[in-house]
């Protein structure tokens, strides 16, 4: 579906930006309320649901036994994929995975993988023969803006609740997957000429380029991605990088609180 970018919406967003305002009344660096639910899907070995304004995302973790890659005989594997199915918005159409959904899955994948929170060697059962393949599938049910952050949060929260189904595969007793850390993504979109955190659906429609930052527990960068048409300055990046630290810390606490319950 061709997305018409309404000139009037862009003008309105630019006018609001002059007074540092947003359409829904939020501050520039203010996120929408986030609710996180874990262990919510029967049949998934780990699962999470994230609601962020009008955005609803589920993530589910599945395991399978596979033979290791020849060059890494003692390592398991991790794969994270996202589906932008037509259920999520009228703009999504059925068919093979779109470039958008591939980008989304890969950005989330990189943040988790590169943070090193999963020790690939711990997924090895018999070197050269048998290792665990961990699959995180992200299912976007409603796109109300900023699905990247929602997907990143759902993926890591689901992974952190995962139980390895060793018994079902006849390789021992079930155990909780060891996950060392909670990488979190923060996304920013240029709206009305300046960056804002956690864009809504309308802000994405009338906005420009976006930047996704994934930070680990120590505040280290694990994944960066710039998407869509537009350029930014180092000063602009420095500003949103500061904000990303704050927002990532808050979301990491949300995950920790959920696990504490």
């Amino acid at each position, binding site marked *: 579906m061709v997305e018409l970018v309404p000139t009037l919406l862009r003008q309105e967003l630019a006018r609001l930006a002059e007074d540092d305002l947003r359409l829904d009344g939020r501050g520039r660096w203010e996120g929408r309320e986030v609710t996180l639910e874990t262990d919510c899907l*029967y049949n998934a070995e780990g699962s999470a649901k994230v609601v962020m304004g009008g*955005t609803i995302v*589920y993530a589910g973790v599945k395991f399978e036994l596979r033979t290791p890659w020849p060059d890494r005989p003692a390592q398991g594997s991790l794969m994270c994929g996202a589906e932008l*199915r*037509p259920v999520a918005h009228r703009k999504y159409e059925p068919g093979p995975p779109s470039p958008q959904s591939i980008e989304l899955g890969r950005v989330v994948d990189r943040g988790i993988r590169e943070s090193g929170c999963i020790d690939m060697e711990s997924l090895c059962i018999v070197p050269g023969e048998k290792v665990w393949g961990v699959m995180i*599938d992200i299912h976007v*049910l409603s796109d109300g803006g900023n699905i990247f952050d929602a997907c990143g949060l759902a993926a890591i929260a689901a992974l952190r609740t995962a139980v390895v189904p060793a018994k079902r595969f006849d390789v021992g007793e079930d155990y909780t997957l060891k996950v060392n850390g909670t990488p979190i993504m923060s996304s920013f979109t240029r709206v009305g000429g300046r960056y804002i955190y956690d864009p809504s659906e309308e802000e994405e429609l009338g906005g420009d380029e976006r930047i996704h930052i994934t930070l680990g527990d120590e505040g280290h960068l694990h994944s960066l991605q710039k998407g869509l048409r537009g350029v930014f300055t180092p000063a602009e990046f420095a500003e949103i990088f500061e904000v990303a630290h704050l927002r990532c810390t808050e979301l990491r606490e949300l995950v920790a609180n959920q696990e504490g319950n």
Partner: protein
Amino acid sequence: MGGYGDVQLLRDDGLRLDGRKIDEMRPVAIEAGVLPAADGSAMVTHGLNVAVAAVYGPMEAHPRKIQRQDRAVIDVRYNMAPFSTSDRIRPGYNRRSREISKVTAEALESVVLVERYPRSKIRVEIEILAAEAGTRCVGITAAAVALADAGIPMRDLIVGVASGKVEDTVVLDLDKAEDNYGQADLPVGILPNTGEIAFLQMDGDLSPDEFNLAMEYNFKAAAEIHEIMVDALKRRYEGGEN
């Protein structure tokens, strides 16, 4: 059906493995309007099954070859999430989901007043998030509530229910073990107000008497689920929203 004779599905006290009576359905809960991006939506939990349906439209029908000059077409996609079953399902359309999508669309076209929207398309997306036998029925129920939630005129709702046979006994609403090891499965889509049937499939082995009893159970369950559907729609609109 599986037909494994050595799996016991009825306990010595006559109840089923999960403690249900033979004519007792699993608990059902329905919520309408769960997806902000959709024109209409519903989530149905039925036992451990979780199905979400979204409706978009009526909208322009494309590709143009699917257009009908005299009515709307309903484009249904039934899809199981990769993590919805015990072994992961590879994402994408398969023969099973294509068939279910087709017969579900035809069932929904039987109740929606499609003549009101010539040359247009109504998209119905059914996503199964957790599967424990009977997902096509749960999907139909979710789709019917989502269509009503979208304000699309219909002559009746449709309720998806199934009965079957295990150990030569007709039982209502098969669970996973009963579906895998039982002798028959009879999923139907019932119009609760008119008592008509818009969806029918069956596999296994049923005598005429067993069929009649299974149908009787299905109608009884449909009446119960219908109340829950109506209640979900009332809760959605009584609050003053929309």
